[in-house]
């Protein structure tokens, strides 16, 4: 939209609130779509609004939500990370191994998160300091660490997980809300606020807007890029912690294909694949929207094989609507 062209001659005053921009913001659009989808779902299936179903949807998408936060940061800063699914599995297997070795819960969690740090540093170093292409690099680490998962687990599910650890994820300490939901909401709010307001986290938007300009503005571009991949991997590793705690076992094929599902959701939520655009809240709404669409399909006994068709169509519609909204704007 050429918002500016019409009022070029007004002096540089903010002149109230930019309602048009709010109306066209992706968060609001996706929010409305979620509402419409939820209403449609209620009409299509009597089970949709049951507590059990809602709980299922919300808990089912919690891991993707956590992964989506990290991917938002990487995409916003102009990169991409395909290795997140492998990191979820790696962290899960490392935790299971730690329990096998008789380590305590905090140490096991720390070990899982450390696995995330390692992958993040590898990704970040190769991309930021060696200058390799992020898509190719993380495709490589995705493959490598998925293999590592199979090697470490021997290909079997590992399920000697202490019950108290499972209770962490499956309990509801706060107002009867599932702990997982509390964790996810807290993370989303924290990261959304940080990306919006915190001086350091805001640098990712600068980096994604123009690397050259960021460099000239005195931002340590390489270190920031590396940190983006580390944060993304650590969040994915946290997803792995949640997987193990929720399921009580670590499967080597955990989160296979999750990277593409989450990238799809994050883009539906308004992140640009070219960097510079995207919010954590939008990404979370994108995950929620796709989860609802899938839930409708499941409730109406549509074969799960159709889920890909639905997600793909939503993705293309989102990108299409973007192209229409931004027509005429200089790129």
């Amino acid at each position, binding site marked *: 939209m*050429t*918002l*500016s*062209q019409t*009022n*070029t*001659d*007004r*002096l*540089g*005053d*903010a*002149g109230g609130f*930019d309602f048009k921009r709010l109306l066209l913001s992706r968060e609001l659009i996706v929010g409305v779509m979620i509402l419409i989808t939820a209403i449609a779902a209620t009409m299509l299936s009597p089970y949709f609004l049951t507590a059990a179903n809602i709980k299922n949807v919300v808990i089912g998408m919690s891991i993707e939500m956590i992964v989506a936060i990290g991917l938002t940061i990487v995409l916003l800063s102009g990169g991409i990370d395909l290795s997140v699914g492998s990191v979820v599995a790696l962290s899960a297997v490392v935790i299971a191994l730690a329990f096998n070795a008789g380590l305590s819960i905090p140490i096991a969690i720390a070990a899982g998160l450390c696995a995330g740090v390692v992958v993040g540093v590898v990704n970040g170093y190769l991309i930021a300091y060696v200058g390799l292409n992020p898509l190719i690099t993380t495709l490589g680490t995705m493959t490598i660490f998925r293999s590592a998962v199979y090697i470490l687990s021997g290909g079997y599910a590992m399920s000697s997980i202490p019950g108290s650890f499972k209770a962490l994820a499956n309990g509801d300490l706060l107002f009867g809300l599932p702990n997982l939901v509390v964790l996810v909401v807290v993370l989303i709010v924290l990261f959304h606020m940080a990306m919006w*307001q*915190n*001086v*350091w986290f*805001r640098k990712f*938007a*600068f980096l*994604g*807007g*123009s690397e*050259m*300009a*960021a460099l*000239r*503005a*005195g*931002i340590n571009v390489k270190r920031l890029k590396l940190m983006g991949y580390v944060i993304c991997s650590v969040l994915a590793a946290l997803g792995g912690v949640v997987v193990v705690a929720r399921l009580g076992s670590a499967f080597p094929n955990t989160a296979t294909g999750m990277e593409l599902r989450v990238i799809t959701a994050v883009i539906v939520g308004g992140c640009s694949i070219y960097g*510079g*655009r995207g919010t954590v809240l939008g990404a979370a709404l994108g995950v929620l929207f796709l989860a609802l669409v899938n839930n409708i399909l499941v409730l109406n006994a549509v074969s799960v094989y159709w889920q890909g068709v639905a997600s793909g169509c939503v993705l293309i519609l989102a990108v299409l609507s973007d192209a229409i909204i931004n027509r005429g*704007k*200089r*790129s």
Partner: protein
Amino acid sequence: MTAPNKVVEMTGIEKRFGPVEVLRGVDFELYENEVLALLGDNGAGKSTLIKTLSGYYQPDAGQIRIGGQAVSFGTPHEARDHGIETIYQDLALFDNLDVAANVFAGKEKVGGGWRKMLGFVDRNAMRNEAREAVSQMAINIPRIDQEVSAFSGGQRQCVAIAKSVMWGRKVVIMDEPTAALGVRETGKVLDLIRTLKSHNLSVIVIMHNIEHVMEVAERAIVMRSGTRRGTVNLNGPQDRESHDEIVKMLM
């Protein structure tokens, strides 16, 4: 009247890239609150000369003085710390961000109290200061909270320049600021240059159009094959004599 002070003085600047001798002992001076045009053919070494001043390149020989004090810049940052700001041709703006974010990039204001503890920025303060800086410019900006991707070439220059005024620079360097602009936008950039002068800054501008040079600059330095041909004092657009003198040096 006392002789004007030199803000920048460069003497005997030499720079080579491999076998190519790009600058062969160039002298250069910029006076306080002066608009200086740097002229010369393509490949004369203009960009290279100003890049040694902005810390982008290090000269192989020669000396740079800022306000009489000898300096040597290892990085563009050091030059900036000495009050020398370069407006690059690509403007180095963040298209995805608004005016305030662009003006404050890398130096964002942190709020007080609880915000300080969380490292939260003070959006209102930044917005107000950016509006203040931008409104002193010769070009109107539609909305201070709008992404600069929607701006015209002149408005983008305005944002880039507002930054240097804002940060209290002494010298602003512009390398072919009008190269990609139409007639109307070019006129606006010339206005911006006058605005900079009215803010007591000194300006070095590289431009090819002699008419434009005559309109804004008070003096021109002409370069040729890595050397300085000479300098001409200019007295406004009607000054035919200086005009012809420049043309002669350029030939």
